[in-house]
């Protein structure tokens, strides 16, 4: 074979391999956006192979977990505290739930989902933690209930993957879990038995519902709808049609509820009736709930900007950010925390004037 032909041959093989690699991107294709939790002093977040604890004051890393990445194990769900504040629960994209010390980042225990020959259990969203246990929704259609020492209490199976955290209802003293199988499930937290199941809500549901004190459960669906269910009657109270898939969780603020869709429409609805109060289209898809702080609404969009709106729907400002904002903004102390994707920073802290006070690239990045 001539040198030229050898080069050509190897080039063809390389292009083919790279072409396929580029198509598939990641081998088991694990990719989400960062989940963030903050207390008064520290912000905890997960992104890719590790979770981090960072000082809220100056963005200095306190620890990372695991100390070294484990091949094939990623974390995207926000770490969550147990009610006593002694444990930070971290769910992975590969079959495991970890309990770590919030102070040191040292592992207390971990729970591994029993191996299935076919399907990995990806924990896309955070577990719900309460005195009754840890309730972790997984992409293998299963809600896992663990006690606070990591022992399995029960499992509940739905028809399709679970991408959204369950929520706790004081009214029925039960869990509500939404599923991509179009249903909302009310489950007994002690036993995992089904209390009731909603009618088919028309489309997959990938974000936690909002719940009001009056017993209204508000659900965003991919059927271009936001639906309010009455907790007592289990009937639909109202429906609101969006322009595209409603991905983000609704957010209740007084007598209003804020909903959005992936075309970038943001709506304020009357909580009791679902009637539209105002609508804006700040630009860019909206994939997570907004933050209401100091009478202002902060909306993350996937077009590199944080949009600030007052409660009458008038845009007050637009904060450009490097990267895409799929994750909603989080409040931490006097700061606003953003976790952009496709950015050099995993986390950005803004002060009250919207000025970046620090960004967090990990020390070894």
């Amino acid at each position, binding site marked *: 074979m001539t040198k030229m032909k050898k080069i050509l041959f190897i080039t063809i093989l390389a292009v083919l391999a790279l072409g*396929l690699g580029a*198509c*598939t991107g990641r081998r088991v294709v694990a*990719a*989400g956006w960062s989940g963030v939790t903050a207390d008064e002093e520290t912000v905890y977040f997960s992104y890719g192979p590790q979770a981090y604890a960072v000082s809220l004051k100056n963005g200095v890393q306190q620890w990372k977990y695991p100390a070294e990445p484990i091949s094939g194990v990623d974390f995207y769900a926000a770490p969550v505290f147990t009610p006593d504040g002694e444990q930070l629960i971290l769910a992975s994209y590969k079959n495991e739930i970890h309990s770590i010390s919030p102070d040191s980042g040292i592992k207390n225990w971990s729970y591994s989902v029993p191996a299935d*020959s076919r399907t990995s259990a990806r924990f896309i969203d955070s577990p719900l933690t309460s005195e009754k246990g840890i309730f972790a929704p997984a992409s293998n259609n299963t809600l896992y209930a663990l006690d606070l020492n990591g022992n399995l209490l029960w499992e509940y199976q739905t028809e399709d993957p679970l991408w959204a955290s369950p929520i706790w209802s004081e009214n029925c003293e039960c869990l509500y879990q939404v599923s*991509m199988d179009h249903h909302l499930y009310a489950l007994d937290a002690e036993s995992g038995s089904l209390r009731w199941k909603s009618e088919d809500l028309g*489309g997959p549901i990938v974000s936690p519902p909002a719940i009001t004190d009056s017993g209204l459960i508000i659900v965003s669906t991919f059927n271009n709808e936001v639906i309010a269910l009455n907790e007592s009657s289990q009937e639909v109270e109202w429906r609101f049609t969006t322009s595209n*898939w409603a991905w983000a969780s609704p957010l209740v603020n007084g007598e209003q509820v804020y909903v959005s869709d992936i075309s970038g429409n943001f709506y304020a609805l009357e909580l009791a009736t679902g009637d539209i109060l105002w609508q804006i289209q700040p630009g860019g898809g909206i994939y997570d709930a907004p933050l209401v702080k100091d009478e202002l609404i902060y909306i993350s969009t996937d077009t590199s900007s944080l949009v600030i709106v007052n409660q009458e729907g008038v845009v007050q400002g637009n904060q450009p950010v490097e990267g895409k904002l*799929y994750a909603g903004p989080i409040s931490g102390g006097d700061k606003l925390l953003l976790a952009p994707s496709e950015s050099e920073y995993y986390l950005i802290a803004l002060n009250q004037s919207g000025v970046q006070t620090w960004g967090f690239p990990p020390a070894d990045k």
Partner: protein
Amino acid sequence: MWDAFITLMINILLFIYNLIGQNFGWAIIIFTVLVRVVTYPLTAQQTKSSKAMQELQNSKKWQDIQKKYKDDKETLAQKQMEIYKEMGIKPFGSCLPLLIQFPIIIGLYQAIIRTLAVTPLQLVNLSKHINDGANLIPINSQFWWMELSEPERLPIFGIGIPILAILVVITSYIQTKMISPSGGAPSDGGQGAQMTQAMTLYMPFLMGYLALTFASGLGLYFIASNLATIAQYMITGQANFKNILPKLPNFNR
């Protein structure tokens, strides 16, 4: 342009998926066969050009000029061009159809992988390619013993055997062997033969490695594609069984 092409591929794939009762494994197989049928004229042209080139390189006239001008590359090239012209052969006639098929194949891979959206960012990406179809989500990616969005292993006595990757290697090898000309070798110093041998050896293993490590939906595509190619060659009487089982009589037309 490329994005629009991928969007088209994804929507055809989803259309088939919905039509056949939401089985993504069968959707991949049917779509692969359809693409093979649609691109058949290109494959046929490529085969025809390759065959003509093969015959030319085995001809006495060709071999004579190789010997005569072996130390004068410039004149050799000139003479070769004259022979091409005289016999109406386009030297790159077999490359062009391949180049046209290449983006179609890559597009097909991308459509399969993007449709198997199993993480939030993948679903965001998919949502930008489909106008409607929320009711098809999540895609049912269970097929036989496989989860098409993950690398495949079939547990046998507690050991995960990569059946799909093994089948990819076997079918790729058979396909490459079957479409190679008998004896494989043009006698022009063995360059073509070496190239063919290298392809026969490396390509199945490359494909097998990809099937081993990437989502099994790709492995399924490779097998469907290989079997479709083998069937195509058998139907048109161009399959060269003697390369696989040398004792067989030659069934070539």
